[in-house]
């Protein structure tokens, strides 16, 4: 095996001699030649391409469902076209703006705080020396990911309930006034974000941890020999190294910026407590209340399409920005 001599630095984007640069000539010939030159790599992508063709692209024309009055006997494409009718229930009560705002605001909080915390955990874990401590703490941080939202909702009620909750029990013990958590909407953004962070940080930090592990130890050692302390190391080597990972995660989550985490909201806030809706109602919970009694597939598709188109626009703009600033990190 040959030992390569060039050392890579984070975010390195050395221009490589194109093995497959399209040769000048007629366009058609060029295309064929490019195809041929890339054949192995293309073949390597083939299983994935086939997979997504079948499982994602084949059902995609079904989005048309959002525009028809669905008749089960006729099938989706023979059902009568009704234009934007299936979207109307979203706008008719004038709540769409509030829902869109809430959904985006929560997702932005989740993305920013979530990634910050995950990065912090990954970096700190990397700095620790005690093997057992690392192993055990990492395993423990993984636990919440396996507790279903239904249970999280139950646990939260047991902590926050007014008459019997652990929190108020504690407050009464120290002589403070009990809090009416379930009738105070202002507390809920905090509760929801904290629960989200609690649940997802361990799981999410794995990605960053693996990325930190992939960091070239020679560079780190060189920096240490040069007298860099831990803070400097983190600041100048580790953080920049994690930037591409962060950007990719960011772009991915932006696509779903209008998709809410139904399980989290539904189980924490419940389907009945309108006192909290001002700060906790998101698109999913709203749609749930709308459609739980009449199971209307086209209206469900309409909502999904709205979320998709919105996410698509956000991602396109974000990707364009990333491409301008740091082309190597863009998604496509």
């Amino acid at each position: 095996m040959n030992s390569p001599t060039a050392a890579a630095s984070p975010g390195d984007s050395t221009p490589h001699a194109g093995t497959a640069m399209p040769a000048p000539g007629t366009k058609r010939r060029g295309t064929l030649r490019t195809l041929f030159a890339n054949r192995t790599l293309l073949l390597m992508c083939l299983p994935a391409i086939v997979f997504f063709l079948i499982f994602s692209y084949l059902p995609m024309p079904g989005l048309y469902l959002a525009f028809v009055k669905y008749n089960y006997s006729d099938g989706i494409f023979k059902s009568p076209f009704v234009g934007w009718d299936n979207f109307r229930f979203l706008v008719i009560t004038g709540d769409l703006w509030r829902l869109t705002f809430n959904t985006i605001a929560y997702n932005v909080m989740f993305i920013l705080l979530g990634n910050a915390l995950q990065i912090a955990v990954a970096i700190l874990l990397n700095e620790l020396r005690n093997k057992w401590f690392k192993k055990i703490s990492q395993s423990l941080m993984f636990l919440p990911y396996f507790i279903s939202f239904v249970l999280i909702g139950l646990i939260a009620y047991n902590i926050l309930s007014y008459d019997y909750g652990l929190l108020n029990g504690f407050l009464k013990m120290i002589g403070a006034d009990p809090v009416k958590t379930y009738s105070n909407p202002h507390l809920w953004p905090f509760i929801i974000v904290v629960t989200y962070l609690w649940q997802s940080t361990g799981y999410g930090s794995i990605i960053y941890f693996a990325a930190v592990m992939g960091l070239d130890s020679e560079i780190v050692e060189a920096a240490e020999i040069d007298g860099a302390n831990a803070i400097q190391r983190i600041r100048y080597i580790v953080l920049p190294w994690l930037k591409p990972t962060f950007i990719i995660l960011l772009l991915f989550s932006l696509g779903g910026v209008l998709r809410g985490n139904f399980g989290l909201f539904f189980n924490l806030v419940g389907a009945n407590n309108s006192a909290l809706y001002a700060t906790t109602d998101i698109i999913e919970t709203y749609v749930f209340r709308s459609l739980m009694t009449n199971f209307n597939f086209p209206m469900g598709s309409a909502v999904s399409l709205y979320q998709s188109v919105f996410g698509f626009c956000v991602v396109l703009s974000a990707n364009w920005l990333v491409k301008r600033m740091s082309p190597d990190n863009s998604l496509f």
Partner: protein
Amino acid sequence: MSAPRTAIRVDGATLLVRTIGYGFIGAFALICLLPFLLVVGTSLTSESSIARHGFNLWPRVFSTFAYKIVFENPDLIIGSYWVTIGITVVGTAVGLFIVAMTGYALQRPDFHYRNRISFFIYFTTLFTGGLVPYFLLINQYLALKDNYLAVLLPGLLSPFLIIMMKSFVRSIPHAITESAKIDGAGDFTIFLRLILPMTTPALATIGLFIAIGYWNEWYNAMLFLSPDMKYRTLQLFLYGVVTSADFVKNSSAASNVDLRDLPLESMKMATAVVATGPVILLYPFVQRFFIKGITVGAVKG
């Protein structure tokens, strides 16, 4: 494992970082543990005690009744375990291989179609056909009804993991590929012999994610595996235990079902413990692959 650096003297800033590290990580791990203890404790508490006193870390009235109900049909739960393990192992192995291969190809700067294919893959996270066409596809066109493949196949790949892999592999200098090419190695050989061994932490991470996805799978199983199949996935089995009890208690729909003493809350907790247990054991195992040194640095020698 991380020996090389411990020899260097520890300066103030490093000490500070470590102190914060131990404190913060330790506290956070504890916060994650406590609710889980609550779950374990409650799963061992008698139902009437839960109704009266709420949840407790330590059971006031000890009872293993919930576990008895969950394990009422040991044959079924063991069967479901095996099904889930089988699907998880096969799916993770196959999925991981494809993800790694695709990820590698897509990060090759000299791959002409990489942006187009990346977009092709990423696009599927934004737009989906919806439930009805998806159900038709699997149930009728692919005819995978009551077939474990209906659970296995859709879980193989996800755009997210492929793009993650792409970004991980990027940390391996392209020069390695280049020089191997000069030696006459083909793209696939380079991937298999050179790249794969160097990406263990990435593979471990992505494998873990795929495995967890399969482990938690119940939705596809619910849609496509009918109750006529004796063994279905573990999560579907557990989900069924909880929701049916939940539904039935709220209606008289099945008043012939004897639910007199159903330990509802404790049963929910017990199912969580049963479902989580093995994964807790799995994680430390995966951790072994997060070892510095196998990766890029080692190759360079």
